[in-house]
């Protein structure tokens, strides 16, 4: 007998009405409740947090809010982004943690068992720079630690009530931020997919014994939007910058000349820019604010992620005034005074 939606609902009501007799029954109740939540659809990434890091990319040497250790700093300090121009590196994909770190939208599809109708897997579409991501829901075993690692890794999911919890291992070493902050191939990622009405919050907790001092938590909230674009971009490597064979862009230890630009731009002490677990706690901010003085005025990315950005001499700047009104309708008096032209942007 197939498990119909009404049967599931009937079982769910009964399970929610009495205390479970065992952990197994609790798990069954959690799975049933989750089975009534539909995650499939196209979800738009609004970028209302960390717009700089997610859209144009973080500043060189900006490790703020990242509980990384010295090993990670050494890797990131040596990183030169033009490394990505090398033909053999152009098509290296970001790992699955990039779902909450990147700027892309998200498409989720269900793969159903043709006999039971149960969800065998969720497929998260691959898109620019990010691989497809399969979340297995059928209880299959995790592969050997020595099994091949991929950018997407190996993911299994289970419903915990109304929350889908996903555990991912077997990711290749990858970039967490586009300024070179890494995670290792020993990293484990736990994600929680939480749907509220037409919003989907994905919370990621990355644990990495090699590069991170503490578990790293991030979250991104998406909105259901059938018009959101999720376009895969086939990668075709080509020579973008001619180089001597074997040349790999990088900085030797202590030789990156740009690490001080970011703290100078925002008057931050170098220590704050270097990240670390202690910098993510309120007491660090409290101590910092006692001496901190912000620059007088924002100068970079000030309107990023708002509707107020305009291009001026090939630079994105803040619009300084309301735009001129649209062409007046034919019935409008022809002699209506025109609004003054938009003054030049201030930045």
């Amino acid at each position, binding site marked *: 007998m197939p498990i119909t939606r009404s049967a599931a609902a009937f079982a769910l009501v009964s399970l929610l009405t009495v205390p479970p007799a065992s952990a197994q029954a609790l798990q*069954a109740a959690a799975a049933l409740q989750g089975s009534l939540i539909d995650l499939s659809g196209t979800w738009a990434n609004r970028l209302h947090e960390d717009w700089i890091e997610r859209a144009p990319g973080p500043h060189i040497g900006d490790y703020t809010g990242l509980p990384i250790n010295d090993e990670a700093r050494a890797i990131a300090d040596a990183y030169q982004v033009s490394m990505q121009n090398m033909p053999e590196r152009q098509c290296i994909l970001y790992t699955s943690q990039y779902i909450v770190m990147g700027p892309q939208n998200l498409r989720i599809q269900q793969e159903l068992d043709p006999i039971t109708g149960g969800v065998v897997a969720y497929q998260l579409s691959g898109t620019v720079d990010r691989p497809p991501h399969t979340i297995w829901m059928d209880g299959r075993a995790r592969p050997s630690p020595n099994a091949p690692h991929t950018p997407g890794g190996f993911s299994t999911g289970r419903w915990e009530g109304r929350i889908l919890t996903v555990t991912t291992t077997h990711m290749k070493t990858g970039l967490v931020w586009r300024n070179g902050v890494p995670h290792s191939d020993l990293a484990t990622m736990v994600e929680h997919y939480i749907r509220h009405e037409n919003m989907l*919050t994905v*919370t990621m907790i990355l644990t990495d014994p090699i590069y991170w001092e503490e578990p790293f938590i991030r979250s991104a*909230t998406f909105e259901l939007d059938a018009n959101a674009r999720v376009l895969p971009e086939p990668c075709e490597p080509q020579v973008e910058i001619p180089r001597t064979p074997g040349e790999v862009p990088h900085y030797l230890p202590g030789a990156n000349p740009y690490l001080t630009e970011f703290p100078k731009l925002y008057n931050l002490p170098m220590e704050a820019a270097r990240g670390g677990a202690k910098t993510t706690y309120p007491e660090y901010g409290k101590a910092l604010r006692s001496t901190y003085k912000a620059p*007088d005025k924002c100068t970079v990315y000030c309107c990023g992620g*708002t509707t107020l950005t305009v291009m001026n001499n090939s630079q994105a700047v803040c619009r300084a005034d309301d735009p001129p009104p649209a062409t007046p309708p034919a019935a409008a008096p022809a002699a209506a005074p025109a609004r003054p032209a938009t003054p030049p942007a201030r930045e």
Partner: protein
Amino acid sequence: MRTLGRILHGAAVLCAAALTFSSLAAQGPAAPPGPPPTGKAGAPVDLTGNWVSIVTEDWRWRMVTPPKGDYASVPINMDAKKVADVWDPAKDEAAGEACKGYGAPGVMRQPTRLRITWQDDNTMKMEADAGTQTRLFHFGDWKAPGGAATWQGDTTAQWETGARGRGANQPPPMFGNLKTVTKNLRPGYLRKNGVPYSDKTTLTEYWDLVRQPNGDQWIVITTVVEDPTYLARTWITSLNFKKEPNGSKWDPSPCAAR
């Protein structure tokens, strides 16, 4: 073989449900539905305790006060930009409005610790040590008194459990989240550098509890700010608070405009 396993698994799930339902039926006729449980009795998850915000997102906008004119990520409109462009913390201090960055939409993004308790059976109290602020979440049929707008506004709360028709004598559901809706807010700042919200703002928050394999517990708050005056669209963010074993690091501090 795998298909057989799935069928057996599905059957086991249904059997568990059926057995549980049978045990319910064996208890005799269902009691008539009573009044709904109180907020405290109906809680599907325990949000009480001491929590700390781990600032791994928007660090530069939250840990320190950013420079004037830095609005990145907030979908403000031109009216908001005009207000933010004349932000003057000295003027706020002189006017006794140093707490403008600590209203409900702002304080949750501060680096802060939270202490959540039950004030009574239908009122959850959330204290923040940043700015020494207190929010009250009212369950049941509570009606806002309609007084003057305040920094923390009037908040109604409900548990979202997916189950309906429950009576007072039933045990609480096993899964769910808290939804709060806050209105009647005194105008303040979404970001401490003067990015404004108006008195027409509605703040909706969804509070979910997640547990980690290492025993850590986190509250994930999905936050929706609607403001027809200063936002071009809803501002949607999410916050993460980690549970602490006790309140030893609780450190109340006054509002600071700078």
